[in-house]
């Protein structure tokens, strides 16, 4: 028993090292640039792939070759990180935070396809480390030698990082830039160089984290998303920007995971409870608990907004008659679509309508309410599964199931939202991601109820709505209703409270408003509306799978909103249309649709830093009226 515990503990330590390396890199990059680098997992993935290639090149057998490959792999990733900073991120430091996020999403897509092109879709397993292939005996149990090396690497890197950050001028400058990068520049420090070096270091750590895993796990294309969500969890649990916190969190989570695997299946009162399956969600549960108890992470501090990076939210104008006239005109035009379009076009437009609602609801949270959700697909998926299960298990007709879907999703959003509104900023975003991941893994694993990874099939519309034209009109009506509802709410007192809370929580409190309660209801409203979109989606496709609430779907939603522009109400609708159409168009024509999508997104980000609709709006206001003149800023 004791031996088992010790071995599991050692396994945990070994697992923690790589997690720590990746999270430390993410944390350092975030600290200085305030960019949440979604591509950090991709850099980790490149670390494994590159180490694999270098091992093949240097020869599998030699000790020097192996460690040389690890080092070269990590260094190459560092260089790639520096290149990314110079080529892309440097141009958008002054863009809104969310836009930077969009750029890093694009990088994820591009890197994935580059890896697919170079290394192919097959898993690649590296050699075991020469000279460390054996095992040592600990309390009568065998423990791999290589894992002992891993156990040492984590603390060594932690120590080196501490020395670097606290005992060198470079480190002092980095810590200063973390607080106020503009001021550091005004004191004569070349920020460009500082930022590039920080990206090099952060990417190097991610690459190293990947490279040292080469003997333990195969290089494969899914590592980017799984790694980034692990790394996010660790950074958030440890506290944003705290390297020591990242180390503690990595240890904690790796230990818990190791013990879950070690415990395996346990039978309690005849019910088999699988701890090993719990590993998929356990870190997210830990994160949720930590964030509720210590909202800034274990060793973190409240994040002041960094100086020299803030943006002022523009005035939101009331919806005037002209706006409604255009909306009604557009809807009438869409009603006429079946007269000219074939079924394929109708299906595309149904998708667009559904995702327009998804994006509009997400935007409702992100824009006016200022609560960024990284896991909005959870409510979409809850709506999907809610409708499907009501239809299949309770034999409810489509109409009732459609009414049920927003209720199911709304209840889910009430539960998740209760926790989420206790946080703000990046922490809130991470917690939404955690809940989405929990929802996903429940659906994914509960074969008997949700169909597991196969999903559910045979969910068809009622007889009257089977015709594509009728269903199209139904979907249009519901979706238009949802979007208009959200637009009205934004301009109603309720929406004003949310916006006020984004602008100045201090003032909201000082005029007697319980902001959290409004945010909570706002969360539920957005969730319910998204759930209705999910219900429609289910009946339009006839089948659903866990992908409806997986991370990529949440990411799609973010891309739509950001593409359209977060500062306009019409933005998400435009973004959803553009994104859905692009995805449909590109996916039909090439295997590398992700990269093309990624490059398109990057081009848009670099060309229109306010989003497409935002750009159009600015151009429009510039055209028709001169902005307010006069000296109004300090």
């Amino acid at each position, binding site marked *: 028993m004791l031996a088992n515990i010790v071995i599991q503990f050692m396994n945990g330590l070994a697992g923690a090292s790589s997690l720590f390396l990746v999270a430390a890199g993410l944390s350092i990059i975030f600290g200085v640039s305030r960019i949440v680098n979604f591509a950090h997992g991709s850099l980790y993935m490149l670390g494994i792939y590159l180490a694999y290639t270098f091992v093949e090149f240097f020869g599998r057998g030699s000790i020097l070759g192996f460690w040389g490959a690890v080092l070269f792999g990590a260094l190459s990733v560092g260089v790639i990180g520096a290149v990314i900073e110079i080529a892309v991120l440097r141009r958008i430091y002054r863009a809104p935070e969310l836009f930077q996020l969009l750029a890093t999403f694009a990088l994820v897509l591009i890197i994935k396809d580059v890896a697919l092109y170079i290394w192919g879709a097959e898993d690649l397993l590296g050699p075991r480390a020469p000279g460390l292939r054996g095992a040592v005996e600990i309390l009568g149990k065998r423990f791999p030698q290589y894992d002992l090396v891993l156990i040492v690497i984590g603390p060594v890197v932690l120590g080196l990082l501490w020395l670097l950050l606290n005992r060198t001028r470079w480190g002092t400058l980095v810590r200063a830039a973390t607080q106020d990068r503009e*001021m550091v520049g005004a004191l004569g420090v070349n920020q460009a160089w500082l930022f590039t070096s920080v990206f090099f270091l952060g990417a190097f750590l991610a690459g190293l984290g990947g490279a040292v895993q080469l003997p333990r796990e195969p290089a494969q294309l899914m590592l980017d998303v799984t790694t980034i969500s692990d790394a996010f969890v660790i950074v958030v649990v440890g506290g944003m920007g705290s390297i020591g916190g990242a180390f503690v969190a990595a240890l904690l989570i790796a230990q818990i995971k190791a013990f879950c695997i070690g415990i395996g299946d346990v039978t309690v009162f005849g019910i088999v409870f699988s701890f090993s399956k719990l590993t998929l969600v356990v870190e997210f549960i830990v994160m949720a608990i930590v964030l509720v108890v210590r909202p800034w992470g274990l060793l973190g501090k409240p994040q002041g907004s960094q100086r020299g990076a803030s943006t002022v939210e523009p005035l939101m104008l009331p919806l005037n008659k002209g706006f409604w006239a255009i909306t009604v005109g557009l809807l009438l035009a869409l009603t006429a679509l079946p007269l000219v379009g074939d079924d394929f076009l109708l299906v595309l437009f149904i998708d667009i309508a559904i995702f327009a609602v998804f994006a509009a609801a997400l935007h409702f949270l992100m824009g006016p309410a200022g609560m960024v959700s990284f896991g909005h697909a959870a409510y979409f998926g809850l709506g999907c599964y809610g409708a499907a299960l009501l239809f299949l298990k309770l034999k409810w007709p489509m109409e009732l199931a459609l009414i049920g879907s927003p209720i199911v999703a709304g209840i889910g959003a009430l539960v998740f939202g209760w926790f989420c509104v206790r946080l703000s900023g990046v922490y809130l975003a991470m917690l939404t991601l955690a809940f989405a991941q929990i929802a996903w893994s429940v659906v994914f694993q509960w074969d008997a109820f949700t169909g597991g990874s196969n999903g559910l099939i045979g969910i068809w519309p009622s007889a009257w709505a089977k015709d594509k034209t009728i269903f199209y009109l139904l979907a249009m009506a519901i979706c238009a209703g949802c979007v208009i509802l959200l637009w009205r709410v934004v301009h109603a007192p309720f929406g004003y409270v949310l916006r006020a809370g984004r602008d100045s929580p201090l003032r909201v409190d000082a005029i007697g408003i319980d902001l959290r309660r409004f945010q909570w209801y706002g969360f539920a409203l957005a969730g319910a509306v998204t759930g209705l979109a999910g219900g429609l989606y289910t009946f339009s496709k006839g089948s659903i799978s866990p992908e409806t609430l997986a991370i990529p779907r949440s990411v799609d939603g973010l891309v739509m909103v950001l593409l359209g522009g977060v500062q306009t109400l019409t933005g998400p609708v435009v973004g959803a249309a553009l994104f859905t159409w692009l995805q449909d168009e590109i996916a039909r024509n090439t295997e590398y649709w992700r990269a093309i999508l990624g490059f398109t997104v990057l081009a848009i980000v670099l060309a229109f830093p306010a989003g497409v609709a935002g750009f159009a709006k600015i151009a429009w206001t510039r055209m028709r009226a001169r902005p307010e003149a006069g000296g109004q800023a300090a």
Partner: protein
Amino acid sequence: MLKISGLNSFYGRAHILFDLALEANKGEVVVLLGRNGAGKSTTMKSIIGLVQPSAGSIEFEGKSIERQSPYRIARAGLGYVPEERRIFTDLTVMENLEVGRQPSRDGAPTWTPERLFDLFPNLGRMKDRPGGRMSGGEQQMLTIARTLMGNPRLILLDEPSEGLAPVIVEQMANTIRELKREGLAVLLSEQNLHFSEMVADRAYIVEKGRIRYSGSMADLMRDTEVRAAFLQV
């Protein structure tokens, strides 16, 4: 030493500075007076490069600097002390000074932490204290000391007396006079006329992004009409 002409700057979409022109000479203390929002801070930020001017020229020591990035301008010997202090609260006093450190420069006094602690004895007693645990007055001293570590020839002080107790404001005036004795040129923006009178040789009044008055500080203090028109005092 510093010569600005035809300067126009925007803040976002708002036009803040209109054909602004001013000069500061070696060994001189020049004050920009004007109400909040008049464009004093934007002038400062335009000089140091934090706001990119849309038109106009800024010459420092005969070289044009209006298209340069802040760190290059700072390295040319221009020191900037922002309003709201903006010290690094997580860093200690010594580390804050380290961030500001630049090589010594011809024609400018060379500062070391020891020399700065002579100038600001309070700071010397709290070398290892994080900036966040200092009082407003101490922070104001630190932000000036930090900028001096760059050995500037000219220092821009944005509202140094704001939010400080009168007794600290008096110390600040002494500090500025000390810097002048060291041979530094000082361009400061102020709202406090009494304070300005104690330190400045010349004054400009800025209103709605334009220079509306320029002359010696002594003349301004005698000119009750101008003061009433632009400063409401």
